[in-house]
């Protein structure tokens, strides 16, 4: 509205309008407006009418006192609304109900806004100066307040009931007028005049309560009737519908609150019953590989605080149970069957564990979206059963044997290169779950030594590849010795070449037998017992010759001969045909005795060779009671006893020209465990000293827990073992107990 007349010095004479007169005129305008709003035939305001009305107000406000009627006009402005509301609006609303009432309300509200707009234009001049001067609410607000106080306050409760009834109707599947509801709820919002208070207090809180009780009823019957997957489908659908509801007619701020209520009633209250449903709950879904249902379960519970914990827990229990079952299966098979079949079963176990891991990792990544809770659950489950013993073998040993089978020639695994690489990768990953990593390392090392020294390694690349993987996972210290072993072999080959050159240049030194020596760096290789066996003279010469050669290369190293690892090729001059025998050095030493004597007693051999009973029995058994009977034993019983005597079996023959006579290896397990236990004692000592050196003073429990943490990369130390080492360190004056507080320890420099 443009001001046509300003406060200028106009010489024009203005006639004073008195209040009653002026108001009468205004009433005509107001009446006209009402008629338009009522839908009665009434032309719209034209600009002249509008201007006249506006000017009337203007004049009445700018007249000189006592004819300045601003206050009165302000009051009459409000009264105009009040009158209209009381006489027309309220009665019209009160006579209607439910949906009809809602429609009427929407209409009346819309009308009211129009009325406010128009009237405030007419009375605009009041807004400019009067309200500011008197700090009064502006016209717009006055108008709205009238509606709020007289209409809204009267009816909002009834309206709310009607709306909620419609909402529930829609929930039951009936069609409702969504646009109507939107308009009604907009009133609640607008009536707040910038605040959401009215919407929240007068509508939303009731709507939420109602929704909660609605879903509570539904949930209580669904939980009885429906399977877990069906219930979840319904829940998912309900949530979707409620979100749509918000989008269509509720205020957006209601969404999180409504969703929370629905989730609570459907998913939180009955969480336990739902997940634990006997034939269709989480456990059953996992058992039956119901990937889609599990994904849905994840989606639903993901948004609920701590909602995933029970699911992850059930997942962990399930995986643990599956793992335990595999272990038990292997255990049962092992106790029921012969040793060699049992060991195959153990290899099968590792395969199955790998498969189990692959299977459930897919679940973690796909169903459970790689959520940390599920990664953790999987890890913890594997840590439980991967550390169980099967038929006396620790998991560390089983895993090492498994690797050996893949890496050795003629191993039980005949796979393509790719498949081998893949398997090795998976094996290394499994190692992460095994707490006795140092035990694995030791078994692995022992078996690696056999592969390297007896040329049983199938593929150098694979050997190096697994070492790289182990290094990545467990650190350089884990693999440094093993790498040293592999390098030693390479160096040994070079060394052998030099040796052969040396022999070429010194024909007098030649021992007369083809000799290959592998020099090993002591620190890298497992420790071997070496006995003072009396070697046959031919071999003694070999040793001397090599020593002579070695001293030309280096004077500062000492050679310790490990005869137990040597191999000999002997020509057996049997009656039927000569056969080459591939035997261990010890076996050769026994056989060569028969070059000078036909018959020897057990004791003869024992004294001549200077071996232990245990070793000698093993040797003689392999030569006289096993598959190839190179010696005949008298009496020909199945086992060797100290009263037996032996003779060269000239009648021996075989269709092959060369045979290998295996010497069953001594059970290394006991020694490995002993060695590892010894290393652990040193490791614990070192950890305690390291910690105390840096902390100087520390409480017992803290020391123990830091110790466990530091050592956890390689093994899980026994608390008692730590205590024992601490006692030892106290005796050795590395630590002392604090005089005042017996639970504190001090480092003694």
């Amino acid at each position, binding site marked *: 509205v443009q001001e046509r007349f300003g406060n200028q010095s106009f010489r024009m004479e203005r006639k004073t309008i008195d209040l009653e007169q002026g108001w009468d005129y205004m009433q005509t305008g107001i009446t006209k407006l009402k008629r338009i709003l009522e839908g009665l035939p009434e032309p719209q305001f034209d600009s002249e009418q509008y201007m006249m009305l506006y000017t009337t107000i203007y004049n009445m406000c700018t007249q000189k006192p006592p004819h300045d009627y601003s206050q009165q006009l302000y009051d009459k402005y409000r009264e105009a609304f009040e009158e209209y509301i009381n006489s027309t609006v309220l009665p019209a609303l009160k006579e209607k109900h439910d949906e009809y009432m809602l429609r009427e309300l929407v209409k009346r509200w819309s009308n009211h806004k129009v009325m406010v707009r128009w009237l405030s234009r007419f009375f605009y001049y009041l807004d400019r100066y009067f309200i500011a001067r008197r700090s009064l609410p502006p016209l717009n607000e006055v108008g709205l307040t009238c509606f709020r106080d007289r209409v809204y306050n009267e009816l909002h409760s009834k309206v709310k009931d009607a709306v909620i009834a419609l909402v529930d109707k829609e929930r039951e599947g009936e069609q409702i007028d969504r646009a109507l509801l939107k308009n009604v709820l907009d009133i609640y919002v607008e009536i707040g005049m910038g605040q959401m208070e009215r919407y929240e207090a007068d509508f939303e809180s009731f709507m939420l309560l109602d929704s909660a009780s609605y879903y509570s009823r539904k949930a209580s019957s669904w939980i009885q009737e429906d399977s877990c997957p069906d219930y979840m489908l319904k829940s998912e659908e309900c949530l979707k519908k409620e979100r749509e509801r918000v989008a269509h007619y509720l205020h957006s701020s209601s969404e999180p609150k409504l969703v929370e209520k629905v989730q609570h009633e459907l998913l939180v209250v009955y969480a336990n019953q739902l997940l634990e449903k006997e034939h269709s709950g989480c456990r059953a879904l996992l058992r039956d590989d119901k990937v889609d249902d599990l994904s849905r379960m994840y989606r639903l519970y993901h948004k609920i605080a701590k909602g995933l914990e029970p699911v992850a827990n059930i997942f962990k229990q399930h995986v643990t149970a599956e793992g335990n079952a595999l272990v038990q299966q292997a255990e049962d098979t092992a106790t029921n069957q012969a040793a060699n079949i049992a060991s195959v079963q153990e290899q099968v176990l590792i395969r199955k564990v790998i498969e189990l891991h692959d299977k459930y990792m897919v679940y973690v990544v796909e169903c459970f979206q790689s959520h940390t809770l599920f990664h953790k659950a999987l890890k913890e489950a594997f840590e439980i059963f991967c550390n169980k013993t099967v038929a006396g073998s620790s998991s560390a040993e089983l895993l090492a044997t498994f690797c050996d089978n893949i890496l050795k020639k003629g191993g039980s695994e005949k796979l393509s290169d790719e498949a081998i690489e893949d398997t090795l990768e998976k094996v290394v990953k499994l190692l992460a779950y095994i707490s006795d990593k140092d035990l694995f390392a030791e078994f692995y090392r022992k078996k690696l030594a056999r592969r390297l020294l007896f040329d049983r390694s199938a593929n150098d690349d694979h050997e190096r590849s697994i070492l790289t993987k182990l290094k990545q996972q467990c650190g350089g210290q884990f693999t440094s010795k093993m790498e040293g072993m592999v390098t030693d072999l390479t160096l040994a080959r070079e060394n052998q070449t030099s040796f052969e050159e040396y022999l070429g240049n010194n024909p007098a030194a030649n021992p007369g037998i083809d000799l290959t020596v592998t020099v090993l760096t002591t620190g890298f290789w497992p420790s071997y017992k070496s006995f003072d066996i009396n070697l046959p003279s031919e071999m003694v010469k070999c040793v001397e010759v090599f020593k002579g050669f070695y001293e030309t290369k280096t004077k500062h190293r000492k050679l310790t001969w490990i005869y137990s690892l040597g191999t000999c090729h002997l020509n057996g001059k049997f009656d039927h045909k000569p056969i080459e025998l591939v035997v261990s050095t010890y076996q050769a030493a026994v056989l060569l005795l028969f070059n000078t004597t036909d018959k020897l007693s057990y004791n003869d051999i024992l004294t001549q060779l200077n071996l232990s009973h245990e070793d000698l029995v093993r040797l003689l058994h392999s030569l006289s009671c096993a598959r190839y009977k190179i010696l005949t034993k008298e009496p020909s019983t199945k086992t060797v006893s100290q009263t037996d005597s032996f003779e060269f079996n000239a009648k021996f023959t075989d269709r092959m020209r060369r045979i290998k006579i295996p010497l069953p290896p001594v059970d290394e397990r006991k020694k490995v465990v002993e060695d590892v236990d010894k290393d652990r004692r040193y490791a614990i000592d070192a950890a305690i000293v390291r910690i105390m050196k840096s902390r100087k003073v520390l409480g017992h429990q803290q020391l123990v827990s830091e110790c466990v943490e530091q050592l956890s990369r390689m093994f899980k130390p026994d608390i*008692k073992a730590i205590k024992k080492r601490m006692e030892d360190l106290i005796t050795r004056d590395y630590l002392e107990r604090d005089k005042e507080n017996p639970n504190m320890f001090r480092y003694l420099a």
Partner: protein
Amino acid sequence: MRRSSAASKKKSDSITSSTTDLFRSGPSKATSKEMDRIDHLFNQYANTSSNLIDPEGIEELCSNLQVPHTDIRILMLAWKMKAEKQGYFTQEEWRRGLKALRADTLSKLKKALPELEKEVRRQSNFADFYAYAFRYCLTEEKQKSIDIETICQLLDIVMGSTFRAQVDYFVEYLKIQNDYKVINMDQWMGFYRFCNEISFPEMTEYNPELAWPLVLDSFVEWISEKQA
């Protein structure tokens, strides 16, 4: 603080200076007459060539005091003397002890024993006495631990009257277990703490996660198994 017998011989050579010190030190100034009688008593039991009271002499002393040779009161006397070597009293140690007890005759010494026992059993002294008892049994240079059998005897002497049940059980345990062939000072003191802090035989306050010596953890475990 271990002195070999050679060193103790040295000390007894410079006897004049230490005698003078004895005269000047302490709140109770021994008169020269008292000191003479103390020395006289010493000579009655001492071995003339070594100038020490040796095990034989101690046995005789015990017999004269009418106290068993293995009685705790002899150990307490040794403690009072701050005697260093088990089975031997030097002249200085003798003087130190008897002067402190104000005993210059055999009968006075005998009468002083009950009072001495009271003094030692005071909480503030007993821990020190208990530790002393262990050190007293270390006979070799650099010896840090005592064999099980000796420990059992020592426990009986030192703690038998006050903690009969604990001592009996612990001694039984030590005899049947195989993990420990010797006991060190830390374990020895641990047992003392155990008797004082843990109710027996309930042992509800015992927590193996605390810094109790491992031998006590095993001991407690053994008892629990026995009671089950």
